[in-house]
């Protein structure tokens, strides 16, 4: 008669959440991570190993890298918004832009245009990288994703992973597997002094480009007809179609916008690390995906803030959290910290910082 006790529970009792072992474990995990982070941070700060200028350098680098993650994350989030699909090839689409930008950069570097007309040369690099990313993104959508649009199960996702390999191996086959170094601009290593703090020009440049691109994107999404249609499609595809929206065109539009952002990101990323490589899209792609999830996938401001936050954590985190714990060479663990943050978000706030709950019922 043990099950009769279940049926005689007073009304409302079943709605009360019961605490089980998994909840306890989760809380313990949460507390453990928080304790390690706080303990590490306090210890690092007490040791005083880093000066204010060094902290500033970390933060500056973090925000620079973060703005690039944010740009790439926007591509994931917009495609997810309209198709509810993770475009896992997006990091490699970014890589194709970096290669295209590299060829233009080495061209203008050899013929001297980079030295004589730097603005023109930089504009050309960005334009070609963006055009390449847009073209690759649109081709991917048309030939790899659209045929699978209505397929059941994980077919589109598997296909995206396949496209990722195709892009990597195509670039490897065409241009080799070696690391190619990006031509340096004259101002690349320049620094300016702001109130005694050294600010590298290239960081300012990258952040400026990334933030301008994001402002333009925001205006497109919120002030244009197509942008409004994209937001409508990401809420309710069928209802948008009933309003006369051609959903296929909106999907193309989202891929194009994501490609353009990836193009800007690719040049910025290459400027930071000064090299291109066929596999270079993988790590920033995964991290930007993490950033998009962190901000709440499908949310545009979420992708921007998630990217910035991840970049900052990665740059400041190792020194702040790990140094004080006596871990040597903490900087090599920056990827681990970045992904740990992503994992914690997935565990404790799966909808991200700004995202809707995936299972939310439509009112």
């Amino acid at each position, binding site marked *: 008669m043990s099950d009769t006790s279940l049926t005689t529970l007073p009304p409302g009792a079943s709605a009360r959440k019961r605490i089980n072992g998994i909840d306890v474990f989760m809380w313990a995990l949460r507390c453990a991570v928080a304790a390690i982070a706080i303990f590490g941070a306090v210890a690092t700060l007490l040791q005083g190993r880093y000066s204010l200028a060094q902290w500033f350098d970390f933060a500056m680098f973090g925000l620079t890298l973060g703005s690039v993650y944010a740009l790439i994350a926007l591509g994931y989030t917009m495609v997810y918004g309209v198709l509810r699909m993770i475009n896992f090839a997006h990091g490699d689409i970014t890589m194709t832009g970096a290669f295209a930008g590299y060829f233009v950069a080495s061209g203008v570097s050899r013929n001297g245009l980079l030295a004589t007309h730097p603005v023109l040369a930089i504009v050309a690099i960005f334009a070609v990288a963006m055009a390449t990313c847009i073209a690759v993104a649109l081709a991917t959508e048309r030939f790899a994703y659209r045929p699978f649009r209505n397929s059941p199960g994980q077919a589109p996702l598997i296909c995206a992973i396949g496209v990722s390999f195709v892009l990597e191996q195509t670039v490897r086959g065409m241009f080799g597997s070696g690391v190619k170094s990006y031509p340096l601009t004259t101002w690349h290593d320049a620094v300016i002094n702001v109130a005694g703090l050294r600010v590298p020009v290239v960081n300012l440049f990258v952040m400026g480009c990334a933030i301008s691109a994001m402002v333009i994107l925001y205006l497109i999404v919120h002030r244009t*007809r197509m942008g*409004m*249609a994209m*937001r*409508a499609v990401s*809420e*309710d595809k*069928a*209802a*948008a*179609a*009933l*309003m*006369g*929206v*051609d*959903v296929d065109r909106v999907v193309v539009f989202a891929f194009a916008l994501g490609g353009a952002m990836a193009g800007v990101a690719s040049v910025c990323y290459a400027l930071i690390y000064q090299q291109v490589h066929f596999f270079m899209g993988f790590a920033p792609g995964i991290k930007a995906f993490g950033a998009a999830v962190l901000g709440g996938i499908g949310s545009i401001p979420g992708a921007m803030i998630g990217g910035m936050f991840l970049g900052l954590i990665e740059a400041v985190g190792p020194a702040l959290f790990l140094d004080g714990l006596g871990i040597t060479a903490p900087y090599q663990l920056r990827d681990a910290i970045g992904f740990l943050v992503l994992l914690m978000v997935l565990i404790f706030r799966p909808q991200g910082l700004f995202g809707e709950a995936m299972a939310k019922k*439509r*009112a």
Partner: protein
Amino acid sequence: MILEIENMSLAYGNIEAVRGVSIKIVDGGIVALVGANGAGKSSTLNAISGLLPISAGTIRIDGQSTKELKPHQITRRGIVQVPEGRRIFGRLSVEENLLMGAFSRNDHQAIAEDRDRMFELFPRLKERRRQVAGTLSGGEQQMVATARGLMARPRVLLMDEPSMGLAPLVVEQVFDTIQAINAAGTTVLLVEQNALMALEIADHAYVMEHGEIVLEGPGPELAGDERVISIYLG
């Protein structure tokens, strides 16, 4: 004849949801399609809008088959659906929802005039034009959905269960609005579970049961028909 459905059938997998349905809609009136839950009314509307493929029969707009048309192209031909459950864009503002309704149009001046007319028709929406539509009450959301549909300047407005989930007083308002819309020159195809109210205002009506049309005739006449009463009350 604007819209003609002839012998249409459609199926979900092996389950036939609609069988051999024929509906004619001429310019000007209110046509009601009533029936119990699951009778195939919404499926019929979604087939007209191009959201569901049909397995047999034809749907014609101005005599042309819609077989090759996508949903947005059907909307652009003036056949506009206000879907069941309202389906407004909750994260867009009220005004943006209305502008989405006019997405198929390019006459900016006239769109702005229509928007102002909607705010006259629904003063509540004017007060809340900048508000995110998802925060409105059910009745207000139905206003947004209706106004959004009208912004397309439809020739035929397909309304799917506009009274669903609304308080009785608000339901009255919705029916008044439908009559006002019709009086202003828009043909309405009204799908309702609230059969008696729908039949009262319909010039012509069809009764659906198990995917088939079992009765048709002038609305008020059907409202008094014994068989209708037996389907709904008995």
